[in-house]
C-alpha cells in the first residue's frame, strides 16, 4: 500500500519535470540555452502567486471546470499498473473506464474553452473535439488488444501479467498495438505533429486556444492537468509496452521505471525536433494510421494468434 501511494506521489511529482525535460532537450538539440528541468515547478509557483482574473462573460463553469479537468486524471493515476513487485494495484479497471475518465477531463476542458466566449476558445474546443473523437476509438482498441494479450481486461492486472510472462508468440500484434499507442500518446498530449504546445499562433493552437483566457490558479491547475496527462500516458506506455524491470527489488524497479519514462520523453523530444507540425486537416491521417494499427493488432491477435 505504501509503495502504491508512493508511486502515485512520485508520478505526480515527476509530471512537470518530464515536460520541462522534453523542452530542455529540444532546446539543446536546437542549440539553444536549455531551461532548467524544474521550470515546471517554477511556473507553478509563479502562477499560484498571481492574481486570478476571470472574464466578465463567463459563467460559473469557468470556476468549476479547472478542478474537473484535473480530478479525473488524478483518479486515473490510482488505476495505473504497479511499478514495483508486490505493490498494491487496482486490477479491475479496464480500458473503457480509463478512456472514459480521460475524455471526461477533455470534456470539461472543451467546456472551459467555450465558456470564455472568446473566438479562440470556441475554435480550440472544436479542434480538440475533432481530435479526441478520433483518438478514443483507437485508444479503446489498443488498450483492449493489449489486455487481451495479457489475458486480463483490467489494465493494472494486464501490466502485471505482461511483466510476469511476456507474450512472445503475440509479438506481432503487440508491436502494432505499441505503434498505435505511441501515436495516441503524441496526439492526446498535443505534442508536435498534432499540436504545438509552445506557440500562440492562431492557426496552430489547439490546447493553448482553450486556456487563453485563464490566469493564476486556474491556469496552474490546467497546466498541472496537462503534465499529469502526459505522465499517465507515458507510464501506461512503459508498463504495457516495455514491461521490464518489475521483478527487481523496489529501489531498482523504481529507478528502471523512471528511466523508461525519460526514454519516452526523449523519444517524444526527438520526434518533435525532427517533424513539422501537421496541418489540422492532415491530423486524421496520422490518427487513421493509429486506428488501422490498433485494429490490425486486434485482428492479428484474434485471427492469426500472432
Amino acid at each position, binding site marked *: 500500500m505504501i509503495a502504491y501511494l508512493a508511486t502515485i506521489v512520485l508520478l505526480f511529482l515527476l509530471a512537470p519535470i518530464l515536460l520541462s525535460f522534453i523542452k530542455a532537450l529540444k532546446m539543446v538539440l536546437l542549440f539553444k540555452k536549455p531551461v532548467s528541468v524544474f521550470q515546471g515547478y517554477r511556473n507553478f509557483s509563479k502562477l499560484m502567486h498571481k492574481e486570478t482574473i476571470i472574464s466578465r462573460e463567463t459563467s460559473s463553469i469557468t470556476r468549476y471546470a479547472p478542478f474537473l479537468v484535473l480530478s479525473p486524471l488524478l483518479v486515473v493515476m490510482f488505476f495505473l499498473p504497479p511499478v514495483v513487485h508486490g505493490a498494491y494495484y487496482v486490477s479491475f479497471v479496464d480500458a473503457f473506464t480509463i478512456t472514459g475518465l480521460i475524455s471526461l477531463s477533455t470534456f470539461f476542458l472543451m467546456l472551459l474553452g467555450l465558456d470564455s466566449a472568446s473566438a479562440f476558445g470556441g475554435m480550440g474546443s472544436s479542434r480538440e473535439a475533432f481530435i479526441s473523437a478520433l483518438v478514443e476509438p483507437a485508444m479503446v482498441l489498443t488498450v483492449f488488444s493489449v489486455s487481451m494479450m495479457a489475458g486480463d481486461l483490467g489494465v493494472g492486472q494486464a501490466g502485471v501479467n505482461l511483466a510476469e510472462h511476456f507474450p512472445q508468440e503475440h509479438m506481432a500484434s503487440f508491436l502494432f498495438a505499441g505503434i498505435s499507442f505511441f501515436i495516441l500518446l503524441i496526439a492526446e498530449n498535443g505534442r508536435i505533429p498534432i499540436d504545438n504546445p509552445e506557440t500562440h499562433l492562431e492557426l496552430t493552437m489547439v490546447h493553448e486556444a482553450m486556456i487563453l483566457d485563464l490566469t493564476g490558479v486556474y491556469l496552474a491547475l490546467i497546466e498541472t492537468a496537462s503534465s499529469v496527462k502526459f505522465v499517465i500516458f507515458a507510464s501506461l506506455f512503459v508498463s504495457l509496452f516495455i514491461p521490464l524491470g518489475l521483478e527487481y527489488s523496489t529501489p531498482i524497479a523504481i529507478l528502471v521505471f523512471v528511466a523508461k519514462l525519460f526514454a519516452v520523453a526523449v523519444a517524444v523530444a526527438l520526434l518533435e525536433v525532427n517533424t513539422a507540425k501537421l496541418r489540422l486537416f492532415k491530423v486524421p491521417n496520422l490518427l487513421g494510421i493509429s486506428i*488501422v494499427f490498433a485494429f490490425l493488432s486486434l485482428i492479428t491477435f484474434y485471427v492469426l494468434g500472432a
Partner: protein
Amino acid sequence: MIDFLIGLFLATLITALFTTRLYRLLWWYSLNSLMLGFLALFIGRELDDKAMLITGIATIIIKAIGIPFVLKNLSQKFHFVRQVIPRIKVQYAIMLIPAILVFTFYLSEPITHMIKSNSNYVAISISSLFLSLLLMIEHKNVAPKIIGFLSMENALFLLGITATEGMPMLVELGIFFDLLMAIVVINLLFHKEEMKV
C-alpha cells in the same frame, strides 16, 4: 523475434500506404526490405539453411540499400514529382485497409492449418501482397507504382521463405536477376523520356 520482425514488415508497408512524399516512401520500402532481409537471416539460422542466409544478405544489400538508392538517383535525375498524394482518401483507406486485412486473414485461414511451421506468416504475406496492390492502385504517378511492384516482390519473397522454408537456390537467384532486370528496364524507360524532351 521473428514475430517482431514480421510485425515491423507489415507495419512499414501500412505506413507506406499513407505516405505522401516520394522519399519517405522509398525510406519505408527500404525498411520493409531490411526487415525482410533480417527475417530471412533469422529463419535461415533457425533452419540452418545456407542458401537462405545468402538470399537474406542479398536482400539487404540489393533491396534495402541498392534499389532505394538507384530510385532516388533516378528521381533526382529525371525530376520526379515528389509529392505523391494517394488517390484514395485517408478516411476511406482507414476503412479499406482493415477490410483487406480481415479478408485476407480469413481467406488464408484454411491454409494456416495445413502448413505446420510459421503458418501465420502465410496470412501476413498474402495480406501484404494485397496491400502492395493497393499501393499501386492508389497512386497516379509512376514512381509509387514501381515501389508498389517492388513491395509486391517483397511479399512474394516473404511467402517463399516462410511457407516453403526456402525455395531452391536457383529459383531465388533467378528472381533476384529478374528484379535487377526490372530496374534496368525502368531506368531505360525513363531514359527514353529524357531523350524525347
